[in-house]
């Protein structure tokens, strides 16, 4: 009888011991400033869950749709809890983000310059009201022949960088190793880029969106 009671007690005790202890979450302290700071105010933005997937229209030139899709997939992998998602759409009228291969006209521009091409993100952000007018406009333009291998590689880097701005990183990283450095050389988000994106998607936002023409 005693042996039976001991056997009965063995498994709950072992199970309780096994359940002790918590997973250790990373601190995610290695991040850079992602907010747009315009004295005396700070503007923080990320796409709310109800806006996902973000709709991106891409001009079909220089393989930009392919580079954009790779960038979307890469940034999605930065997140553990599906905080960001985007899809390429066929109609620019319904797009939240528009990608073209022309030079920008907008007033608020984040510039990335790589050897063979340049990228711009035009944020129509009203700093009085904190309203971001959609669509966000991205421009990727070649500096030389767009069919050169270095131009194609450059478009890959630049689209990663500009989609990073479009998801809410409204600044450049100070570290040359990061994809969000103003003159990026890496071909994908670094650990610091990824952690910055993760943190910004759980930070409070101060920017709301409105659609052009509304």
């Amino acid at each position, binding site marked *: 009888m005693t042996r039976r009671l001991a056997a009965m007690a063995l*498994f709950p005790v072992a199970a*309780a011991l096994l359940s002790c202890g918590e*997973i250790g979450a*990373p601190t995610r302290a290695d991040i850079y400033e992602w907010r747009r700071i315009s004295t005396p105010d700070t503007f923080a933005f990320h796409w709310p*869950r109800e806006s996902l997937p973000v709709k991106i229209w891409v001009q079909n030139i220089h393989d930009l749709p392919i580079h954009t899709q790779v960038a979307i997939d890469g940034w999605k992998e930065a997140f553990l*809890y599906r*905080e960001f998602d985007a899809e390429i759409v066929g109609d620019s009228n319904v797009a939240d983000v528009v990608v073209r291969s022309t030079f920008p006209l907008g007033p608020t521009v984040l510039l990335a310059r790589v050897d063979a091409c340049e990228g711009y993100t035009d944020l129509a952000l009203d700093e009085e009201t904190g309203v971001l007018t959609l669509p966000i406009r991205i421009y990727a333009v070649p500096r030389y022949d767009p069919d050169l291998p270095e131009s194609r590689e450059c478009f890959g880097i630049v689209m990663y960088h500009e989609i990073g701005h479009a998801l809410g990183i409204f600044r450049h990283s100070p570290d040359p190793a990061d994809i969000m450095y103003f003159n990026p050389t890496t071909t994908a988000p670094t650990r610091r880029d990824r952690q910055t994106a993760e943190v910004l998607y*759980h930070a409070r936002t101060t920017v709301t969106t409105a659609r052009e023409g509304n």
Partner: protein
Amino acid sequence: MKPTLLVLFLAALAAPAEAQLDYYARTGLGFSTPLVRDVLFQPYETKQGLAPLFVVGVATPVATGMRLGIEGQFMTGSLTASSDEPGDQSDADLGRLTTLSALANLEGVITSSLSWRGGIGLIKYLPSDKQGLFAEGGPVRYFVGGGVDFRRPAFSNWDLMISARYDSHRFTTEALRARGFTQAQGVQRGSLSIGLARTHR
């Protein structure tokens, strides 16, 4: 090592006469404590909701009032991530999570209609999408589990079987480790189920 243990276990089950085999099937509901406790400004938990489950098992006598058995469980439900913060908009539907588990167990008599069961087993996580914490796929973990079974004759050679189960394991994934998560999360699961057991009177 694992195949050898499996062969020995199956041999132990096969050795007694087939007539002594006791088998059962049940269905019910299970729950799980959080799989991951993260901190992103606030605590952020990933857990499986209340989920339907199906159980099949087989057991054979090994001593007076004691049986050796194996029990397989299939449980599938939604996986969500959420924070405790009221109004937090970052709650996420992470798709469907299925678990398959096998428990090698000993069963002993408590009273004529009540028995206990305890053992060790393996649990395999099968996420609907290879994303996020399951980007490198679902892990296999070992667990310790047990519970109690209530049986009451329902038909000739068939018992109504009502069971409560509890098991515990430590959860982590390759994707979590790659992102700097350390240790593993203690996860406890419980279930209630009802079914029929083929018996020999």
